[in-house]
């Protein structure tokens, strides 16, 4: 436990400069955009006179120098103030906090689906490396990995919502249904079934292939050979000796695909009209809302750091070998 704590502290400290680079980089990138929030606002108004423009720029602090604004921005960030969204006319942090849970549910469920089904099929494929089942599953999962998530979403909508009418086409829950408690949870789950599948089935391949590769590796190890020589049942060897040793590295995959999945949620949420974090990013781009987009990128970076940290802690707790050599200099 002490080891995990030391590691956590060191990882948090080392991620501070990285986060600072992200903040400054994002700020400068969106600063380079032609036109600012005031231009976008004026466009929505249909124009305005020069006095109004100057007044608006001043009220948003857009008349200051770039270094001044960057310092102000970072200073505000330290107080958890992410600025003001121009498109929504609300604080950026409120918007993100409001939208994030939907995306976390979507990603969590998709990850659970990908991990459980992927490792299960990986065990089936890795039980007999090189067999027909193995090859079929490997190619099939690769084909699935080649599918764009938004297109898979449309296919699922076409089959399960338009033709079969089993699931709704869009939304996060039935509007104004008045449902509460478990009935509401069931309603949300029913709405999320297709988007979770669209996002989860694609990453299934990663876990399947990693599990399979790990098992192929384990088959060559001496302890498996000795288990076979002892005459243990094949099923027992596969589950207790081979699969067990291949399962642990899959945990690291959870952290690696967090960033990819967060990016993937942008399109999937747009396809299924889920009011989540990813869709907010798309809305920020459409609304030319630089403060909102900056906030979204910074929060997503923090999120990815947090997920990776959690994965590392879990790994250190699961595998006693990790970190044993990491004595602080």
């Amino acid at each position, binding site marked *: 436990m002490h080891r995990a704590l030391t590691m956590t502290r060191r990882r948090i400290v080392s991620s501070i400069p990285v986060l600072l680079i992200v903040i400054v980089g994002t700020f400068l990138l969106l600063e*380079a955009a032609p036109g600012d929030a005031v231009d976008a606002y004026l466009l929505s108004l249909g124009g305005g006179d020069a006095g109004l423009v100057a007044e608006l720029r001043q009220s948003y602090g857009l008349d200051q120098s770039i270094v001044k604004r960057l310092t102000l921005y970072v200073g505000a960030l330290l107080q958890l103030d992410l600025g003001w969204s121009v498109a929504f006319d609300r604080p950026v942090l409120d918007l993100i906090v409001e939208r994030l849970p939907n995306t976390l549910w979507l990603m969590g469920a998709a990850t659970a689906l990908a991990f459980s089904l992927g490792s299960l099929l990986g065990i089936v494929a890795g039980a007999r490396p090189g067999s027909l089942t193995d090859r079929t599953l490997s190619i099939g999962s690769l084909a699935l990995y080649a599918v764009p998530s938004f297109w898979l979403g449309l296919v699922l909508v076409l089959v399960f919502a338009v033709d079969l009418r089993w699931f709704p086409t869009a939304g996060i829950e039935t509007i104004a249904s008045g449902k509460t408690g478990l009935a509401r949870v069931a309603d949300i789950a029913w709405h999320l079934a297709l988007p979770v599948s669209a996002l989860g089935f694609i990453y299934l391949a990663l876990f399947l292939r990693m599990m399979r590769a790990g098992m192929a590796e384990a088959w060559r190890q001496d302890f498996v050979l000795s288990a076979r020589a002892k005459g243990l049942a094949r099923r027992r060897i596969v589950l207790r000796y081979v699969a067990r040793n291949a399962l642990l590295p899959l945990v690291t995959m959870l952290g690696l695909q967090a960033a990819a999945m967060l990016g993937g949620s942008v399109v999937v949420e747009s396809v299924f009209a889920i009011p989540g974090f990813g869709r907010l990013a798309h809305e920020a*781009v459409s609304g030319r809302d630089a403060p909102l987009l900056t906030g979204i990128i910074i929060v997503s970076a923090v999120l*990815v750091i947090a997920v990776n940290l959690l994965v590392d802690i879990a790994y250190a707790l699961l595998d006693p070998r990790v970190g044993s050599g990491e004595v602080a200099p």
Partner: protein
Amino acid sequence: MHSPEGVAGLCLIVLLAAMAFAAPLLYPGDPLAIVGRALTAPFTDPALPLGTDRLGRDVAAGLMHGARTSLLVGLATALVALAAGTLVGTVAGLAGGLMDEALMRVVDAFQIVPGFLLALAFVSVTGASLPVIILAIGLSAWTGPARLVRAEVLSIRERDYVAAARVIGMHPAEVALREVLPNALPPVLALTAVIVATAVLVEAALSFLGLGDPNVVTWGSMIAEGRNVLRTAPHLSMVPGLGLVATVLGVYLLGEGLADAMAGRKARG
């Protein structure tokens, strides 16, 4: 290359490349031009074999020109990412010290921001055109090659032949280019398939969201356009999607086939 998977991948890519090269010959006009009645069903008009979309544009022409865009974006992104990654990785690995530390923190920063969000932000700032989209996707693709090149350089620069080159008085830049880089590159080239495949998918997703180059046909924008008539004419979004799957799958299979072939040669030799 002996594996059936690799051969299948090669066939897919050759087919798609043929489509891409034939596009301007078979359909020399603008694929975005209106050529017939809107929503002509496929296989009804010999001049428009795959019918037309909601605006009366030729689906077959769009499909062919779309292959061109996808392959171009995929290959160009890989080129940009490999070049940038190699440069940063080599500098970091050879310079060491503070320079190495600083460059690797920048690599970290680019890696923790979801690549798609980064591309989204970059395109929204600079305006969508094909070169911008290639750069935008490259922004998150160069980190993998950079890390790998750095690791290779770190191991190679300690070898005797590099020390010998230094001893005979070779200029550091010459050591980097003639002794270190040629040996550090082969493992990095194995990343190409993944970069190309990811770039094709990201470009499609950007176009699907309406952030692609509006003057170029892309499969992503065709899918988005077909989505409006998903119930009545589902083929309009299904067919370009299959094109994307074929492209990405082909790239993966070919990449794996080549990797296997190279590993096999190494094992035999």
